[in-house]
């Protein structure tokens, strides 16, 4: 699951998957804007067949936060 999350972040943000780590966040990545945020949410919802609520679509803006949320939603 971590790999899929990293792949998705890498594809949307157009960075090397190797560079995604616990520090990766909207603050740190220059091109991570609201449009990229939308794409990340869409890709994750498609990949894991889950839904983020209105708040989550905005508040989850780092690799760490996404990882935690996915773990909860997928019961891991």
């Amino acid at each position: 699951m971590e790999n899929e999350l990293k792949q998705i972040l890498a594809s949307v943000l157009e960075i090397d998957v190797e560079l995604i780590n616990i520090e990766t966040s909207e603050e740190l990545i220059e091109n991570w804007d609201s449009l990229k945020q939308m794409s990340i949410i869409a890709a994750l919802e498609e990949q894991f067949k889950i839904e983020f609520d209105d708040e989550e679509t905005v508040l989850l803006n780092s690799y760490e936060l996404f990882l935690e949320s996915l773990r909860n939603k997928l019961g891991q």
Partner: protein
Amino acid sequence: MKYSEILAINSKLSKTQNVYHIAVLSNIIVNQFKEIFEFNLRKSGINAQAIIGDYDNILQDSEKFKKHNLVIIFWEIFNLVDGLQYKSEVFDNDRINEIINKTKAEIDFVFDNLSETAAVVMNKFSTMAFNCNILKNNKLDEICSELNLHLEKQKKQNVTIVDIEKVLVNLSISNSIDYRYYYSSKALYTIDFFKAYAEFILPIPLSLNGKAKKALILDCDNTLWKGILGEDGYANIGVSSSQKGATPFEEIQTLAKAKSKEGIIIGLCSKNNPQDVNDVLEKHPGMILKDQDITIKMVNWNDKVSNLKELAKKLNIGIDSFVFMDDSDFEINYVRENLPEVTCMQVPVKLSEYPLEFRKYLNYFFNVSSTQEDVKRVNLYKTQLKREADKSSFSNLEDYLKSLEIEITLLIDEQTAISRMSQMTQKTNQFNLTTKHYSEAEITQFIKSNTKLVVAIAIKDKYGESGITGLSILNINEEIADIDTLLMSCRIIGRNIEFAFFDQLLSLLKKRSVKKIRAKYTKTLKNQQVEDFYEKLGFTIISAESETKKYELSCDQYNYQNINYIKINNGK
């Protein structure tokens, strides 16, 4: 394919040459459409680069992006005024009319700005996202109908109106609309919608880039009729709605027949005894599709891959312009594996789904505009096959060519041929020196221009008329002429027409005091046969790179080819 995979692969498919520029204008957020649409085009061999215009900036963007190859417009009724989907209910009639009139004026303004753009795709206005549960039409629907009527009335030649509701219906509203994101960021559509929409409109840029399909090749048993001819016999195959279970086949045949009248080549590729199939085509009273509707047949016991290759050779068109239909798992897989450029459709197991599936594949034959040549095309290919057959009786090519009694009619800056000339630049791939694609709007500009000469040729021989089948576009700057475009339809190749044509072009240029001609050969996957065309005419090579060769010729040093058995007519 998943969205994240599309993003990853799309960036790998990007190239720097021959970019097809697309601009997407909208009054909502549609950013996720970019990569999805690029991906669909890049997969099909078109190096698309899409730019999304600024949010709610359709008017300004129609000026900014008017030179792009394709402009797509998402103009959503809900955001004509922020919250119109509910505010319209409490607006009075004056306010409603104000909105309608303002939007009509804006539509006119946008279409005007884009009048010279090669192609514009405009989505019909739709209220479905919010009104699909309402029994009675409301004010929003009123606005919608008015605006759609206006679109139909005002649309110009280069505008294709797309019924977005067809995509919504196929996908369902809940799968297409993201209300969560619409309320937070005015992003109305889901990724799934963009994928379906991209697929739906794909035939438009494909046809503008010379990639529309040209030939529908059908198997016979359980594809054209119910049953197996060799086993069930002539009397027992099911072809008409009066026979049990055969209605889908009647529908398929009728749709195919209609397409053949529009100029699509219908061919057969079947493992059967040829005489058995001919009997059905010529004599069976229930058959809708008859022998005269079918351009070419490969009915034998050879493998279908060889047959398809042979068909492509005989028709002299790329095998990538074929759609192949068969019921057999084996045949479909065999062709898919060996001829990946052929689009294959397998007859569905549930026959009731057959006609609907078939209609989807007919979209591949979409052409932005149809011409006279389209209608005559089936006959043209048939006469060509006849020519080929007769050719073998001549021992010497020259004698054969003389016997054809070929006539070339020159059409200079001919306005009535604009549609056909534009179509040729989009469809002609083999005898094409520079492969530049031009829209009707662009050809019209060239004809109006003082510094450009547009010369088309119509060909006739003793077998009949081939129609307008050659084109040259020349840029004239005082004493120097540049050959921007020089192409000939594959159906007139091999008769030295190109040499007679060039003699005429040279005479025309000399009359206009041109002293020097410059030309270019741009290599593509399909035009190798003209690699040395300019060398044959006596041009000097001035530069040669891997993909391009540049040439020069002094008019007074040109040796006329003098193909004296080809007659030249001037004018209409």
